Each structure stands twice: as structure tokens, then as C-alpha cells.
């Protein structure tokens, strides 16, 4: 929680950031004290705090955007949230693929086919997400995520399927390649548009 507060208050006026950090710290302390008095276990307390963090995260981000004077470019901010959400979803898919691959590897004593591209894609997604958070590298970050997204769509999704009986099922679907192509085109269009949208801002920031 502390790391999250420091992250979204980063770069804000010092007094505003310090006050938010202090207020949330006080809240967390009171929450922990109240939980202790009520006999609530640490695991449940952690879950409650995590839930409050997740519930409030969109408000934290819009509050930050408003303070940084991004009110006029909230569409750009929304796009950033969209790109990050998209990348995070693909990353989750890649991680699930890697986990399945490792389980497969453990049982078969050989590398799971298609594992390497998925690992590359996951790495690419993480790099892209980091680049997208910075104005100067936002365009490259979006293109980086685009590349990784193509690997996930063409390698990751089939790779996920190879480890389950889903493969047999999806292979019988005649429209499966068309679905994959549609997802790939959608990803390309969305991320390319994001890169184009951000390009003038990056030029200004440079």
C-alpha cells in the first residue's frame, strides 16, 4: 500500500504528496489497530487493505491527473489506462502460459513447445509498460507492446491451448484462425492509434 501511495503521488507538489502519504498511513494504522481489537487475523486485514487499494485505485489516478493539470487531456490519460490494462491482460495471459509450460516441462522432461516466444512476449510487455509510463518513451512503449501482443496472440494463445483439451476443441472451430486474426488486427489498430495519438505530445516533451 505504501509503495502504491508513493507511486501515484510521485512528481506532485511536495506538500500535497506528503499530506496524502501521511493521511493514508494514519488510516492504515487505525485500520490495523481496529482489526487487532476486533480479533481480525493478519491475512484478513491484508485482504481488506488490498481490496480498499484496488477499489480506490481509479480515484487515486484521476486525482493525480487532475492535480497535474491533465484535466484537458483526460482522453489521453484514459488512453494510457486502456493501453496499460490491455498490456496487463496480455501479461497475465503470458504468465499463465509460462506457468502451464513449466508444469508441462516438469512432467515431460523437455522444454514445452512455444515456451520461448511467450517468455519473450512477457518480457516485452513489461518493458513496454515501463516505457509507456514515461512521456518521452510512450510511443516506443506502445509499439513495443504491439510487437509483444502479436507474439501473445499468435504464440501465447495457441500455447495455452496446447496444454489443455481446449486445443482439440478450438481446432474444430473453423472460424478460429479468423478470430485470432481479428484479435491481432484489433490489437494492432488500438496500439498503433495510441502511438500516433501520443507522438505529438512526445515531440513537445522532447
Amino acid at each position, binding site marked *: *500500500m505504501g509503495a502504491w501511495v508513493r507511486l501515484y503521488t510521485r512528481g506532485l507538489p511536495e506538500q500535497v504528496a506528503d*499530506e*496524502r502519504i*501521511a*493521511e*493514508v*498511513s*494514519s*488510516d492504515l*494504522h*487505525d*485500520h490495523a*489497530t*481496529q482489526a487487532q481489537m476486533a480479533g481480525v487475523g493478519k491475512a484478513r486485514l491484508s485482504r*481488506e487493505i488490498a*481490496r*480498499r*487499494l*484496488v*477499489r*480506490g*485505485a*481509479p*480515484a*487515486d*489516478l*484521476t*486525482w493525480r491527473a487532475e492535480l497535474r493539470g491533465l*484535466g484537458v487531456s*483526460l*482522453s489521453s*490519460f*484514459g488512453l494510457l489506462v486502456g493501453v496499460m490494462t490491455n498490456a496487463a491482460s496480455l501479461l497475465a495471459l503470458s504468465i499463465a502460459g509460462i506457468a502451464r509450460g513449466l508444469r508441462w516441462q516438469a512432467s515431460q522432461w523437455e522444454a514445452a513447445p512455444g515456451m520461448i516466444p511467450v517468455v519473450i512476449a512477457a518480457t516485452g510487455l513489461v518493458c513496454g509498460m515501463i516505457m509507456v509510463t514515461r512521456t518521452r518513451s510512450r510511443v516506443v512503449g506502445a509499439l513495443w507492446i504491439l510487437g509483444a501482443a502479436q507474439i501473445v496472440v499468435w504464440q501465447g494463445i495457441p500455447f495455452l491451448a496446447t496444454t489443455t483439451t481446449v486445443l482439440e476443441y478450438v481446432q474444430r472451430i473453423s472460424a478460429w484462425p479468423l478470430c485470432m486474426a481479428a484479435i491481432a488486427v484489433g490489437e494492432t489498430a488500438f496500439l498503433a492509434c495510441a502511438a500516433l495519438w501520443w507522438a505529438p505530445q512526445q515531440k513537445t516533451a522532447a
Partner: protein
Amino acid sequence: MASRPQGRLLDIEYSILDVVAGLNGTGHDAYGFAIARHLAATSIGDGLIGHGTLYKALSRLVKMSLLTASWEDASVGESEGRPRRRLYTITNAGAVALATRPVDLTATAAAPARTALA
């Protein structure tokens, strides 16, 4: 991302005003976690409100001069072995906003908050 009209309050903001008014009226300190705990006892939803939602709303209410905020004396927190709290007080404008809120909100959000504080 569309923004709402300036000066228009959300349900949650009316509920926060109501809780702060209730805490102030009963001589209790109105600080972040106390407000969250009292809100949880209302019909707002299950569990405690998200930190971001609460503090963004509080900050907006202060900006609109419906609440005032001040840090309690550091020695109070130190003597109780905890960080200092930011205390909120409802202003006259806040009380007026609360009194003139739309009728449908009065029925759904505020009444349970008052009951919880009683």
C-alpha cells in the same frame, strides 16, 4: 473521460458530509478511517470504502469549502502511539448542501448514516 459539472455532489460525497456532520455533532473526531468505518455501516456497499475514493472525495469537499481539514496536534498522536490524524469539520456551506440535497439521496444514503452514528 467525461467530467461532471462543477459543484454537483455525488451520492458518496453527500454520505461523507452526513457522516462528518454526525461525528462533529456527537463530539467525535472525523478522520479518514472513522469516516470509512461509519460509511461501511451505511448502505454505500459492502466493506470499507477504497482509500482513493474516500480521500479524493474528502479533498474535493474541502476544495468546495463544504469541509475544512486540519492536522491534529502531533503530541496527541504521539501520546497515543499513532500517526497524527487529519480532522474534518463540516462548514456552514456543507450543512446547507446537506440540508438541500436531492430528496432521493436523502432517503437512500443519508438516513442510514445518521442511524449508524446514533
